[in-house]
């Protein structure tokens, strides 16, 4: 399967390399920590230790965000998954600031429990239900990149097959038929579960999610929610680097956004 890089992908790579060469402004990440968040440490390790970007840890009780370029809502069991996954976290004081940040176009990345919190907060449509098998599942799955023209996916090839781990009990994404059509038409579906050859099939769907959806973005393209954990495949020592390109895509997208004339290239 030969893929020709799109102009955006190519540009993304050039910008990324140029950025490193010219030592452009760093990207400030903010990671929200709720009671019960677990993957904050993992995200912090990627953004601060692996990518060398300044990273702030933001306690959920804060009312204001520091001056960040991207907000990460990490995985875990915020509030013990009581009531409904993500249902309580979305009322935390910090979430108002996160919603304003998103409304102004700031990048927001919700991973696993973070995705669940974003749908509860209304920043993304749909809902996340119990896995079809009813059990928690932890394994590596194949995921296909459906849209590489977003700030989160610019360093991936179109239809590229990635190997990412999932670890969840409530990853079954559901949206009604009209909603699903909307997502498809507006190309808001960013990742879908597939076979290792890139075919979308029921067998490749680990949790029963609609249309094999693993991750989506909002209409404006600045908020991403995904069930697989890119931060867990970012370190070559742990056998796989498909995840770190998502964070690197954000880095290069930030440069594009800050460089006049290139802004029109974004999405």
């Amino acid at each position: 399967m030969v893929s020709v890089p799109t102009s955006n992908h190519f540009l993304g790579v050039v910008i990324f390399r140029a950025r490193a060469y010219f030592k452009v402004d760093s990207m400030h990440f903010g990671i929200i920590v709720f009671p019960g968040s677990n993957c904050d440490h993992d995200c912090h390790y990627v953004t601060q230790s692996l990518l060398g970007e300044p990273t702030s840890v933001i306690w959920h009780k804060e009312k204001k965000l520091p001056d960040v370029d991207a907000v990460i809502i990490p995985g875990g069991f915020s509030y013990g998954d009581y009531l409904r996954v993500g249902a309580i976290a979305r009322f935390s004081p910090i979430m108002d600031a996160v919603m304003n940040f998103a409304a102004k176009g700031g990048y927001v990345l919700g991973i696993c429990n973070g995705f669940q919190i974003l749908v509860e907060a209304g920043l993304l449509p749909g809902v996340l239900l119990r896995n079809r098998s009813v059990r928690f599942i932890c394994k590596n799955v194949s995921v296909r990149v459906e849209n590489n023209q977003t700030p989160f996916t610019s360093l991936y090839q179109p239809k590229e097959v990635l190997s990412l781990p999932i670890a969840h009990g409530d990853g079954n994404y559901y949206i009604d038929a009209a909603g699903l059509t909307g997502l498809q038409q507006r190309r808001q579906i960013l990742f879908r579960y597939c076979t290792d050859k890139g075919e979308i099939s029921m067998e490749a769907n680990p949790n029963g999610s609609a249309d094999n959806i693993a991750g989506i973005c909002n209409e404006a393209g600045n908020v991403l929610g995904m069930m697989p954990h890119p931060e867990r495949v970012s370190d070559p020592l742990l056998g796989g680097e498909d995840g770190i390109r998502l964070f690197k895509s954000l880095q290069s997208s930030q440069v594009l956004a800050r460089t006049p004339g290139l802004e029109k290239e974004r999405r």
Partner: protein
Amino acid sequence: MANVNQKPASSHPLTDEEYQKVEKLLGRTPNSTELAIFSVMWSEHCSYKSSRVHLKRFPTEGEHVIEGPGENAGVVDIGQGWVAVFKIESHNHPSFIEPYQGAATGVGGILRDIFTMGARPIALLNSLRFGPLERPKNKYLLEQVVSGIAGYGNCMGVPTVGGEIYFNEIYSNNPLVNVFCLGIARKEEIVKAAAGGVGNPVIYVGSKTGRDGIHGATMASAELSQSAEKRHTVQVGDPFTEKLLLEACLELMRTGCVIGIQDMGAAGLTSSSSEMAHRGKTGLEIDVSKVPLREEGMTPEEIMISESQERMLLVAKKGRESEVEAIFKKWDLDMAVIGTVTDDRMLTIKEGEKVVARIPVDALTSEAPVYERPLAPPPFQEMLQSLNMDAIFEPKSYSEALMKLLGSPNLASREWVYRQYDHTVRTNTVTGPGSDAAVMRIKNTNLSLAMTVDGNSTYCLLNPYYGGAIAVAEAARNLVCVGAKPIALTDCLNFGNPERPETMWHFAASIEGMTDACNRFGIPVVSGNVSFYNETKGLGIYPTPIVGMVGLIEGVRAPLTAGFKESGEKVVLIGETLDELGGSEYLKTLYSQERGYPPILNFEREKGVQKIVLLSAQEGILTSAHDCSEGGLAVALAESCILSPGAMGAMITIVPKGIRMDSFLFSESQSRIVVTVKESDLPRLRQLIEAESLPYSVLGVTGGKELNMTLDGRPDQVIHLSVQEMKEAHSKGLQKYFE
């Protein structure tokens, strides 16, 4: 609160002699609160009264050892300023009565034992035993236990990265749930559990206290009987609260204001307070009216022995109480100053101004009874060890025999289980479930830790000395197969009723075997747990000592795993196969025989084989390594095919040397490891092996999609199976019970 003139029955199961000793130590008759306190502290579970004399044999010191048995967990120095803190514990009885909560709170308890020392838990493993899955009750127990472990561990964000599960009818009414936890810390961050400094505040943190788990310790110190009425004795866990407790405690311990801290586990507030005072050689005065409660009308007795989960007791530096309060408030946890450290070596319990109990600390701890119980081998031991091989006919098809073994519940894939455990959270897992040992990297260092849990109860039944020694040897062998040097172990000793001489004979002999192995291999015991009374209606479990061992890998190397990698690589067996089918899975699965003498363990041979495999791994010449254990050589080779990322097979030539073929294929001879090397590295491997004068055979070469085993010089194939069909049998063997 009335005084009692004679030992009351049921909930205070002290023997008459023990009761008299209580009176002697107090110098008067105990009141009912004091009696309840004695009954839990002197229970087998808390006092180790039947095991202490034997446990003393274990070697507990070594160059890496910082804390041996006695603290909440063992501590070993792993270099570069880091220490590893680990322990294994049982939660057997509660898991039979209420399997989800029993297993969940088992995980909760061991996690607390680790973070109470100031270490952040980074890995969990577990060792489980159940009766055969054909019985719905056993299937239910397995499902619920696995759910409980997953539910608690996943929510805590600590990956479960390895373990073992075995099935045997003997565990039908006595399942075993042993949970191992390892944490890491900077050396200077370790906090111990002594109550020091007279006048310092004694502070309670965590969940409110309720009536759950009352007499949990005494329940675990007696045979299981009717379960329904015992349900209240099983504690209920809340992993979310424990996650908050973990973060709050670690944050607090970094401030330096904690003198000592201990979690409230078996016997709750009673054991933490008496043990901390004992270690600090001080006394503690506690006012139960200050303890945060979630139920009304609790008596002082209930408050002292409740086993409500997710609670810690700590002693802070006087004047710094507000710091403690601020941190626990941030994490929305209860915090209450409930007492003070005194210098009178007494445990004084008050309710407001009224003293409701006053007991010398030593009476509850160092002066608890110590028994040297009689021991004698079971009368049928010789019969058990006899095995008439003439009555065992060789199978018509060795391939079929191998397929049957691969698909048997004891050897089949455990993926159905471990897929429910999050094994990659915290991004430290280099090698996870399904391997010989788990490997966890330590960020910002070039160090990794390997860990495994092992134990074969059939061997222990047939010969407890060798069974115990083999548990240690096998754990160490699994660690060298991932390139790690074994440094220390923790043990969980699961046995029947210690009042039976046979049980004590099993216990003493297992410990003797383990001790000899530890001494010969230079591996100290740094922590552990004893679980007696795993017996129902007079039928006890097989002796089941479980070893949890930790090894160190220095330097960054590609992970060494068991599956075959590239084709054309040489398959080499280091070690020698003997004619010893006793206690084997082959005999159990194909002939329903559980007898004979277990495989012998030659300590020098084992050391030699492990040394060479470790050296070769460190030199980087091994492309795979896998030890031979249950199922013997044929199963080990089959597993290497099944675990091969490319589903690669091998062409193997065997030379049985006068041993019957089924023995050669399925004997569980010890001290054998199968490795693969590139052809160009074979001379170097030979050189290393021959320098140690070890027996070895170059079995063949990797390649193709089949496992072919032929006799040297003969055209007929002994084993001829596709990797695909072996993989299918292996993957369905356990899973099929749950579809």
